[in-house]
């Protein structure tokens, strides 16, 4: 009987993969239609120089990492909170 279950599982997974592939193609096609972003402006060289000095005194990269993490965690939480609210685990 295992071959039967394997066959059914294979069909199910292949069908799911086909859907995912279709989604991927659709997303890629849509993204292909979107305009590219203009090039990002560069900081003036003097500012880059000063930033290098600031980074010499203070780990700006660490602050950026922390803020990135906090914003990311908060964004995730906003999603998780919806699910937990449905389960009445957290307040609305």
């Amino acid at each position, binding site marked *: 009987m295992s071959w039967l279950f394997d066959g059914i599982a294979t069909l199910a*997974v292949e069908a799911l*993969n086909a859907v995912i592939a279709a989604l991927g193609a659709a997303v890629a096609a849509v993204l292909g239609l979107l305009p590219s972003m203009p090039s990002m402006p560069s900081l003036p060289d003097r500012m880059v120089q000063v930033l290098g*000095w600031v*980074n010499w005194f203070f780990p700006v*990269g660490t602050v950026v990492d922390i803020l990135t993490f906090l914003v990311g965690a908060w964004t995730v939480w906003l999603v998780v909170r919806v699910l937990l609210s449905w389960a009445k685990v957290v307040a609305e």
Partner: protein
Amino acid sequence: MRLWRSRAAVGALVGAVLLLVTAAVAYAKVTDQYLDGGSDAAVAEPVASPDDLLPWQGDGITDESLWQLIGDAPNTNAAIQMVDAVEEGAVGSGLIADPWAAGLPVKMGVGTGFSGLSYETPSFDVRWAYYDLQAPQTSNLCGDASAGGSDCEFDRVVPGQQVLVGFTPSGQHLTWTVPEPGMLLFSANTGCAGQFEVGANCVNNGGGGRQPVSVTAGSSQETTLNGLGAAWLHLEYSTGLSYAGSTVYVYFIRQTGSSEPVPVRVTQRGTLGPYMGESPAAGLGSTVAQVGLHHIGETLRAILEDGDHEVARAVMDGLLSGTCTILCDTTATPGDPGTGGGTQPWVPIYLPQPLPGETFESYFERLAARQWLGAAIVHDDSTDYPQGSAGAQAAPGTIMSITTRGTTIHRFTPLGVPINWPVGVRGVIPKIARQDQQIAVRVKPAGSGGSGVPAINMAPLTGALTGLCKFPFGVICWVGGIVGQFNTDPVAPGVDWHIPTVSTPGHSHILGGQRYDVELSWLDTFMGWARLMESFVLWAGAVWYVGSRLIGIRGGGDPSVAVDAAMGDITG
């Protein structure tokens, strides 16, 4: 069930988990940045001697004396005067060297061992070397002539080759290496982050923008030219999207009368780009006059922003005085590769050979690092390779074939036998343009070769999302990029401040005239420790700030209240 309905208990549990995650991330960040070879660790590394990079030749210059010379070289405004001298119409004499015919390895450097040209000007000699990749394929640059065509292609440079291309008076040096065909990596031993990018193929957009192929601003030092390595390496390319005809120039400048080829500045510039029509047609054996009158003035103008002397002097003065200066705007406007639709054709991105065991995700990251802006379509490879063959034993996620521009590169035969990546065969190396939207990749499906049940493959979706940095989603990428620009490498402040002398008709000198030369680089090691401590404190504070609220110290056990309270303090 009652436990799970307890908001306080669940809140505490969720908070504790998030606290652990926060602490783990903090630990990973700190250790990754400061303890395991991060940027600060790199700063503390000793400066390597150029002896380790390449052997120097000619004029009796030894590795040691050259290195000493670099350290002792004075900061002068030599380059500024050199520009004037060149534009006065200096004419030199001599023959273009043929390093290949001389049997010399492909190495560039100060010295006359390869018989570089020498320009006699009123104030300076302009010493430079000329390498034409159309040289006969007898050198190790071009490889085996029988491998294809009569022209050389840059992508056939021997992998692993390393060339020292620039020095600064204070000892920084710049090298480029060829880790694999078609790719250049630049390395500077130290310097100022984000000073300027290096473009191996200074493709212009009509205004001097140079689009790097394999170098990304803000990436690792391996791919970013930092510091004062005043070298600009420019590889030309033909309009046929081939590197055939590529030319590399390296200029060396020395003061007149000096018996030493002082590497005050190494300025490198090709001749195409914005001046494609004025590129020298001179081949090997051409006289200096032929080449020089064609392009040297134009070349310098191209470097110095179309002959703008004010900009030129500012740039060169900044370089020579040891301050960071942006040489080239690396922002380019996309053109249409090879069709003439754009202002200039784009240099192709040669598809790198997938590394052993490399997943397609990692491969796409490498492509993105080469400035590729497109997205990939990922399919499962449905080929039924014979049991036990290399193709059948390939790990899930392995790239089995790549299709781009109608060409498919297979990595295995239908019998599962590996196929060598088409390296060095002109016209066969798969390549894409930077703005090509899609390439198709077939990968070994996860779970294949096992129970027979394929695994769920999210690759098509994740692959498609690689092109998400487009409007309007690209705003996020923008923000990230801009914020990332603030995260530069630490540079010790240095100010050389001259207070002007104030005089009056009756008094030749009232006040001023002092000079304050402040240089804090001697504190680099200690500041590295200080930044490490600051980083620990910052992360500890962040962990405490969020964690204390998540576990209910201020949130009453409800994680939603805790997070809102924590973030509310930040967002106001």
